[in-house]
C-alpha cells in the first residue's frame, strides 16, 4: 500500500515569471511503483505544466479604445501573473503528490485558447470589442495563439481521478482507492493546503455590481442608444454591444469593424468607463477594509507559490 506523508518540494527547478514565458522543469528520480488501475508513471523530469510563450496579456490594454484604461477595482483582482504562479506551483505539488503515490501525471497546458484576460475585469472587452485590428481579422472571436492546438485529452482513470481530487464521481470523499491512501481532499487538497487559492469573491462580486449598475446609468443608456443608432445607420439592427455579434446580415468582420467605429464616434467606451470608475470608487470606499484583507490573502498565496521549489 502506498501512502503519502507530505509532498516533496526539493527536486523542482525554480520557476521564474519573466514577461511572456514561464516554464517549470522538475529534476529528480523516476516516480514510484505501479499497481492496479493506473497508467504508466511519469519521470520527474517531465514538466508539471507547459505554458505557451506567446499571447500573454498586458496589465493595461496597449491598443484600441480601451487603451490605458484600468478600473479601480482591478488592483484587488488576481492578476494573470499571480494566477500563473499559483497554478504552476499547485500543479507541481500535485505532480509530486501523484507521482509519489505511483500514479501517472499528465502535465496540463495552462492559459491557452486563447490568450487570457489579465484579470477578471476583462477591461479590453468589458464594454464589447475595442481593438480594430483584431476586428478586421477575427471579427468578434478572440484570436488564438499560433502555437495553440487542441488535441484529444485522455480521460483519467478512476484511481487517478479519485487520488487527484479526493472524491468519487458523486463528489463523495474517498479515503482509500486501489490500495492507496488518499490524502484529505486528494492531491488537489494537498496543493490547496500548501499553496492556497487566490481569492476574489469580494472584488469579483463588486466588479459585477459596478458593471450592472453602470449599465443602467443614464449616461451609459444614452451612449448605448447613440451607438445603436450609429449601427442602424450602417444597416445593422442591434440594441446592445454584447448582441452585435449575433448579426448575420454581414460578415462578423464587417459588423465588428462597424461596431468599433460606432463606439469611437459615440465615445461609448469612454463614457461607460468613466461612469463605472466612479461607481467602483464608491464601492471601494465602502468595502476598503475587506478588499485589503482579500488582497493581503492573495499576497500570501503568491508568496507560498513562489516558495515552492
Amino acid at each position, binding site marked *: 500500500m502506498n501512502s503519502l506523508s507530505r509532498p516533496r518540494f526539493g527536486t523542482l527547478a525554480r520557476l521564474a515569471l519573466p514577461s511572456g514565458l514561464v516554464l517549470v522543469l522538475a529534476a529528480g528520480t523516476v516516480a514510484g511503483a505501479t499497481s492496479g488501475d493506473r497508467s504508466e508513471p511519469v519521470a520527474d523530469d517531465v514538466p508539471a505544466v507547459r505554458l505557451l510563450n506567446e499571447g500573454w496579456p498586458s496589465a493595461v490594454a496597449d491598443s484600441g479604445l480601451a487603451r490605458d484604461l484600468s478600473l479601480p477595482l482591478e488592483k484587488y483582482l488576481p492578476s494573470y501573473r499571480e494566477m500563473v504562479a499559483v497554478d504552476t506551483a499547485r500543479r507541481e505539488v500535485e505532480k509530486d503528490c501523484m507521482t509519489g503515490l505511483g500514479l501517472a501525471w499528465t502535465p*496540463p*497546458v495552462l492559459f491557452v485558447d486563447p490568450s487570457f484576460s489579465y484579470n*477578471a475585469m476583462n477591461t479590453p*472587452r468589458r464594454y464589447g470589442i475595442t481593438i480594430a485590428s483584431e476586428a478586421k481579422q477575427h471579427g468578434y472571436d478572440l484570436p488564438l495563439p499560433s502555437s495553440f492546438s487542441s488535441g484529444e485529452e485522455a480521460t483519467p482513470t478512476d484511481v487517478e481521478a479519485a487520488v487527484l481530487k479526493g472524491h468519487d*464521481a458523486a463528489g463523495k470523499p474517498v479515503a482509500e482507492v486501489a490500495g492507496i491512501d488518499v490524502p484529505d481532499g486528494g492531491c*488537489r487538497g494537498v496543493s490547496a493546503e500548501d499553496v492556497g487559492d487566490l481569492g476574489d469573491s469580494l472584488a469579483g462580486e463588486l466588479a459585477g455590481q459596478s*458593471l450592472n449598475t453602470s449599465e443602467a446609468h443614464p449616461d451609459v443608456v444614452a451612449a448605448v442608444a447613440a451607438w445603436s443608432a450609429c449601427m442602424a445607420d450602417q444597416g445593422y439592427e442591434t440594441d*446592445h454591444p454584447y448582441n452585435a455579434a449575433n448579426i*448575420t446580415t454581414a460578415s462578423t468582420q464587417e459588423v465588428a469593424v462597424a461596431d468599433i467605429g460606432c463606439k469611437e464616434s459615440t465615445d461609448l467606451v469612454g463614457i461607460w468607463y468613466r461612469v463605472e470608475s466612479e461607481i467602483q470608487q464608491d464601492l471601494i470606499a465602502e468595502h476598503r477594509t475587506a478588499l485589503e484583507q482579500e488582497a493581503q490573502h492573495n499576497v500570501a498565496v503568491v508568496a507560498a507559490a513562489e516558495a515552492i521549489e
Partner: protein
Amino acid sequence: MATGKRSLPGLGLMGAAVVALALIQAPQSSAADERSGDAGALATSYVGDTCSYSDNKSCLYLHYNSYDPTYLRPRGACHMSSRTMTNHWGVVQGTEIVRYVFRTYNATSYCNYASGSGVALVNDAASYFNDDCVRYQVYSGTSGQGGSHILSSGSKGPLNSSVLNTNESHYRRGTCS
C-alpha cells in the same frame, strides 16, 4: 440582470467552433423552446453535455440552481463542458440548430436534481463546479465580451454578479494533456 441582453442569436456564421456534441432529445417543456421558432425550418436539438471526457468526471459543471454549501456539490440540473463555448445560446451546424441547455444526469452522482432540466443555459447559470484540470473564464457577453468570473481548477461555488444569470460564453484556459 443586466439590460440589453440578446433576443436572437446569429445563424449560420458561428458554427465552426463546435466539436463532438452529444445530442439529446428535446425536452417536453423547455425554456429553450421559447426562441426556437426564430430559426424557421431548421431542426433544433438540445444539448446539455459538451464535455469530451468519456465518463464526464472532469468537466466544468454550470448549474441552474444557486449554490448550497451544505451539499458536496452544487445541486440542480447542469450543463457540463470541457471546451470553449463562444455563445451559450447555441450554434447552427449546417441545417441544425443546437441549443445549449441544463440537463439532469446520473441519479447518484452529478447533476442529479431535476430543477432546471431543459432550461436554456444562456443567462441562467447560478453556480458552478470546475472539476477540470484548468481554469475557465465565464463571460456576460458572447465571444469573451463583458464582465467575467474566472473559475480555478477544483473550485465550486456561486457565480458572482458579473455573470450570475447573465452568462453568455466561457473559455477553457488550457488543456490537460
